[in-house]
C-alpha cells in the first residue's frame, strides 16, 4: 500500500509542474522558443540575473521556434498569459504587428550596435547574426565567394526548407535581395549543388557535421561555437561578396500583459549589459549591444560581411510568397 | 422436461422447424444426416442462436432471456471444450466458478470429481499434454461439477476411437443416471443412439421429429433416415 502510494506520488511529481512551492512573488511569463529556454541556451542565466533584481519569478513558456512561437501567441489571442514574447525575428515582425497583440516598449533611445539602424517602437532587438554557408576548412579548398561561384562549383550543400525553418526563409530572402529578378536563375543553377532540404536547422547542421555535404546554411557565428566550446578551428563561414542576409531577433511586450511593469523592466533588462553579455556564448549570435568588455575571444576571428542585406519587416512579408514560388519552381523541376 | 414450442430457426438460407417435448431424465439421441441441422438445433437450445419464432422451455419456463451461461444446461462441443492455457484442474474448476474463485472445499470437490472420472494425478497437466480420451474426461468432470439438469453433447466424442468412444458414452449414461440429468446427444452414428439413448429425435428435411423409441426407429426407419443409413 505504502509502496504504491510512493510510486503514485513519484509519477505525479514527474508529471505535474513544480508549482507546489507556495510563493507570493509576482510571476513574469515570457514566451520564447525552446532553445532559448533550454539548459544550453541563454534562458537559465537570464532568469537568474533578472530574478536577482525584480523580486519576481520569471517563468518561460516555450514553442519550437520563432514561427511556432508567434503561431501560439496568435492562437491564444487576447487571453494569452504571456507578458513578454521573446524570439521573433524580422520576418515575423510584420505578422506580429498586424496581430495587434503587442504594445510599445517605451525604452527611449538605446544605442544598438547592429548593422542596421533600429527605431521600432514595439520590438526590442536582443541579438542578431548573418546567414552564411559554413564549411570545413580541411575539406573545402576552393571556397566560393558568391552564389554564382557556389552554383558553378561542384560543392554539395544542405539547406533548410523556407516553409518550416527560419534559416531557410532567410536564405530565400538573401538570394532575392541580392539578385531580385535574377533569383530564380540562381536557384536553378544551385539545384544540382543541393543535396537535400531539411525541415530545420538541427537536421541540416547534424547532416553537415556527419559529412553529408561540403557546406551548410547556418550563421557566420557558427564557427565560434566550435572554436570556443570545442577548441576546433576547422569550421569557417564563407564570406559572399553580394553581402549577407541579416537576422535580428526581437522581444516585445504583450498589450494585455498582467505584469505590465515587470514586462517593461524585463525589456529594459534585455538591453542591459548583463543580458547582452550572456548572448554570444549561449545563443551563438551577436548581442544587439556589444558589451563594454567586448565580444568573447573567438568572435573576432569570424568573417565580417562587407554588406548587410535585409528587407524592412513589411516588405519581407510581401516578397516572400513570390520568392517561395520561384524557389519551388526551380527546385521542383 | 425440454419443450420446443413451434420453434423455427434459420441460418442463412437454411431453415429448421421443431415442435416437440423431450421428457427427462435420461439420454435422448438426435440423429440425422450431416448438414441436416442437428447442431443448429443444439445451438438454439444452448442460446447461441436466437429463434425466428417459437419458444424453448425448460420445465415450462421460457429460456429466451437467459444468456448461454445462465441456462440450466451444459454444452460440450465437437472440439474446443478446454482452454489450452489452463491446467486440467482449472478447466474443471470453471464448472464451479466461472471466475475461478473457489473455496478450499470447492477445490476439494474438483479433485474428487477428477479422481472419480479417472483423472487422478493429471490435475496439473495442460490440455495439450493429455490424450484425446483424457481431454474428454476433463470436459465431463466439469459437467459433473456444473450439475445442470440438461447436458448437450454435440458430436463430442467424434474424434475418439471406437472403444474409447463407447467408454465415454457409457460414462455419460452413468453420469446421467447418477445425477438424474437429461442428455441430448447429437451424433451421426446410429450405434451411439442404440448404445445409450432409449429414445431418438430424427432431424431430416428441415424438421426435428418428436422423440420415438430408438429401437423402433432404427428397426423401421422412415424414408429420410433410410436414405441416411443407406439401407
Amino acid at each position, binding site marked *: 500500500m505504502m509502496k504504491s502510494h510512493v510510486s503514485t506520488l513519484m509519477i505525479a511529481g514527474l508529471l505535474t509542474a513544480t508549482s507546489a512551492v507556495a510563493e507570493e512573488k509576482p510571476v513574469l511569463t515570457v514566451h520564447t522558443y525552446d532553445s532559448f529556454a533550454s539548459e544550453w541556451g541563454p534562458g537559465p542565466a537570464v532568469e537568474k540575473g533578472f530574478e536577482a533584481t525584480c523580486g519576481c519569478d520569471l517563468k518561460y513558456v516555450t514553442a519550437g521556434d520563432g514561427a511556432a512561437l508567434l503561431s501560439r501567441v496568435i492562437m491564444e489571442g487576447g487571453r494569452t498569459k504571456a507578458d513578454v514574447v521573446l524570439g521573433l525575428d524580422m520576418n515575423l515582425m510584420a505578422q506580429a504587428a498586424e496581430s495587434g497583440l503587442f504594445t510599445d516598449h517605451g525604452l527611449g533611445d538605446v544605442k544598438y550596435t547592429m548593422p542596421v539602424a533600429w527605431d521600432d517602437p514595439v520590438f526590442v532587438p536582443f541579438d542578431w547574426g548573418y546567414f552564411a554557408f559554413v564549411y570545413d576548412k580541411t575539406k573545402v579548398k576552393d571556397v566560393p565567394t558568391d552564389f554564382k561561384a557556389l552554383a558553378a562549383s561542384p560543392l554539395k550543400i544542405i539547406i533548410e526548407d523556407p*516553409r518550416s525553418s527560419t534559416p531557410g526563409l532567410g536564405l530565400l530572402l538573401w538570394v532575392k535581395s541580392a539578385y531580385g529578378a535574377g533569383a530564380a536563375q540562381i536557384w536553378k543553377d544551385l539545384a544540382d549543388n543541393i543535396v537535400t532540404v531539411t525541415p530545420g536547422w538541427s537536421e541540416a547542421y*547534424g547532416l553537415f557535421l556527419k559529412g553529408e555535404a561540403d557546406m551548410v546554411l547556418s550563421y557566420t557565428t557558427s564557427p565560434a561555437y566550435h572554436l570556443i566550446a570545442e577548441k576546433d578551428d576547422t569550421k569557417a563561414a564563407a564570406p559572399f561578396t553580394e553581402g549577407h542576409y541579416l537576422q535580428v531577433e526581437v522581444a516585445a511586450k504583450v498589450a494585455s500583459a498582467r505584469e505590465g511593469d515587470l514586462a517593461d523592466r524585463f525589456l529594459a533588462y534585455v538591453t542591459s549589459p548583463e543580458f547582452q553579455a550572456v548572448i554570444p556564448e549561449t545563443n551563438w549570435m551577436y548581442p544587439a549591444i556589444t558589451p563594454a568588455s567586448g565580444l568573447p575571444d573567438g568572435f573576432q576571428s569570424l568573417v565580417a560581411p562587407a554588406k548587410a542585406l535585409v528587407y524592412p519587416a513589411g516588405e519581407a512579408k510581401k516578397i516572400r510568397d513570390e520568392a517561395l514560388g520561384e*524557389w519551388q519552381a526551380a527546385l521542383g523541376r | 422436461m425440454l419443450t420446443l414450442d413451434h420453434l423455427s430457426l434459420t441460418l442463412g438460407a437454411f431453415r429448421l422447424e421443431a415442435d416437440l417435448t423431450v421428457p427427462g431424465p435420461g439420454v435422448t439421441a438426435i440423429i440425422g444426416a450431416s448438414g441436416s441441422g442437428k447442431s443448429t438445433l443444439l445451438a438454439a437450445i444452448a442460446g447461441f442462436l436466437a429463434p425466428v419464432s417459437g419458444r424453448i422451455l425448460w420445465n415450462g419456463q421460457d429460456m429466451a432471456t437467459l444468456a448461454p451461461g445462465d441456462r440450466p444446461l451444459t454444452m460440450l462441443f465437437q472440439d474446443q471444450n478446454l482452454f489450452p492455457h489452463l491446467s486440467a484442474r482449472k478447466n474443471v474448476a470453471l464448472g464451479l466458478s466461472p471466475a475461478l474463485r473457489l473455496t478450499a472445499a470447492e477445490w476439494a470437490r474438483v479433485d474428487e470429481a477428477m479422481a472419480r472420472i479417472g483423472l487422478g494425478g493429471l490435475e496439473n497437466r495442460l490440455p495439450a499434454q493429455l490424450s484425446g480420451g483424457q481431454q474428454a474426461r476433463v470436459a465431463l468432470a466439469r459437467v459433473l461439477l456444473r450439475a445442470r439438469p440438461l447436458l448437450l453433447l454435440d458430436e463430442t466424442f467424434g474424434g475418439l476411437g471406437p472403444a474409447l468412444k463407447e467408454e465415454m458414452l457409457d460414462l455419460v449414461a452413468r453420469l446421467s443416471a447418477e445425477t438424474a440429468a437429461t442428455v441430448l446427444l447429437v451424433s451421426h452414428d446410429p450405434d451411439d443412439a442404440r448404445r445409450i439413448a432409449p429414445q431418438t429425435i430424427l432431424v431430416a428435411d428441415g424438421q426435428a421429429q418428436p422423440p420415438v423409441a430408438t429401437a423402433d426407429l432404427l428397426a423401421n426407419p422412415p424414408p429420410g433416415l433410410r436414405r441416411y443409413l443407406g439401407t
Partner: protein
Amino acid sequence: MASRARPLRPGVWGVGGGWVAAAALLLLTLGTTAAVLWRAGAAPLPGAADWVAVRFTVMQAAASAAISAALAIPVARALARRSFPGRGLLISLMGAPFLLPGIVAVIGILHVFGRSGWISQLLGRFGLPPLEIYGPVGVVLAHVFFNLPLAVRLILQGWRDIPAERFRLAASLGFRSRDINRLLEWPMLRAILPGVVLAIFLICLTSFVVALTLGGGPRATTVELAIYQAFRFDFDPGHAAMLGVVQFALCLGATLVALWVTAPTGFGAGLDRPLRVWAASGPLARLVDAAILAAAAAFLLAPLLAVLLAGLPALTRIPASLGQAALRSVVMAGLSASMTLGLTLALAHAALSRGLAGRLAEAAGMLTLAASPLVMGTGLFLLLYPIMDPTSAALPVTVVVNAAMAVPFSLRVLLPSLREVDADYGRLSESLGIRGWTRLRLVTLPRLRRPIGFAAGLAAALAMGDLGVIALFGNPDQPTLPLEVFRLMGAYRTEAAAAGAVLLLALSFGLFWICDTWGRNADA
C-alpha cells in the same frame, strides 16, 4: 452443420468501453481538426500545390507500404519455420528500427547509405562516386527501414496463428512447399496483408522528418509539410485544417480498400503445439532462409549499429539533465502503453460485433494514424486553452496523445488474435458463463498474452521515442528525453545528442524487449 451462429448479444465489453474508446479517439482526431477549423472560421479549398503534395504523399506511401510488405513475407516465413539459437533475440532486435525517433533513424541510415556513409566509403576505395539516396528513393528506403520490422512482426503473427495441427495435416498429406503455400500460407497472407499494407501506408502518409530530410527538396513535399507551411509560414490555420481533412479522406479511402480486400482465415484453434513445418527442411530451403535472414538483419541492424558507434564515445559525458528526462520519459511511456492497451482492448471488442458498428470501431482505431500531429496538437491546444493552462498539461496531454497514436498498431496486432480467440473460445466461455471482466482475465488476456506483450512493447517504445505534442505545449522545465536530444542537436551539441540518441534507443528497445519477452514466454 458447422454453424458459426450469430451470438445472441455482443460481449459486454464491446458495448460500453468500445464506444467510449472510439469516442475519445474521434475527439482527438476529427475533434481537434474541427477545433482548428472553427478557430480559423474559413477553410480554402485545396489548391494546385496541395494536390501535387497529395500525389507525392500517396505515391511514396504506397511504394513504401508495398515494398515493405513484399520484403517482409520471405523474412517472416524464414523466421516462422526455422529455429536456431538467438532467434528470439534476432526477432526482437529486428523490431528496433520501428521504435526509433525519426531523426535518429535518418542519421542511422545516412551512416550506412549516405554520401559519406559506409557503402559510399567502400565505393570510394574503388574510385566510384558516392551513393546518392536523396530523393524518392531515399524516402522509400527510409520508410522500408522503418516499417519492414512492423510488417515482419505482423506477418509472423499470421504464421503463428495457423495452428501447428494444420501444418501437421499438410505434412501427413504429403504437401509440398508449393501446396502449403497455396492452401495454408496464401489464405493467411490474404487475411493479414491488407491490414499490414494499410498500416504502413498510413504511417508513411504523415511522414514529415523522413520525407523531408531525405526527399532532396520541394519535389518531396508531403501533405504534412504543406500543413506545416500553412501553420508556420502562411499563418493560415484554415488551410492547415483543410489539409488535415484531406489526410483523413486519404486514410478513409485506404481503409475502405483494405477492409474490402481482407478475407477472414477461418483456421480455427489448435492446441498450442509448437510450429514446425515439415515440408521445408531440405538443405536448399535452409540455405535460402538463412540468406534471407542474414540480408534482412544486415539491412536493419547496420544503421542501428552506426547510431550506437556514433553515440558510445560521448556516453560517459552525457549531461546529467538527460537522466531526469529519461526517467520522466520511461514513466510516461509506461502510462501511455497501459492506456493504449486499455483503449485497444475496448476497441477490439467493439470491432468484434458484426456489421457496420464493428467496422466503424475498427476504422476509429486506425484514425490516429492519419491525424496530422501538428493539427492534432494545435486543436488540442485550442480545446484545452479555455479550460486550463496548456503548459502544465503538457505531460499528461503527451501521455494521452502518445497512447492514442499507438492504438492503430496495437489494434492491428491484437484484433486478428482476438477474433480467433472469440471464434475458438467464445461459445465455450459463454456456455460456462465466463463473461465480462472474468472473461478478460481468464480467457482473453491469457490467450492474447503474446500479442499483448508485443503491442505493449510497441506502444511503450513509440511513446518513449516520440517527440509528440510536447513541443507545442511548451513546458521547458520538464523535457522528455526525445525533446532533450533534439535540444542538444539545436545547441550544436552533436556528440551529446548522439549519446542521448543511444540512451533513447536503449530505453525504447529495453521497454519493448521487456514487454515482448513477457509475451513470448507464453510458449515456455
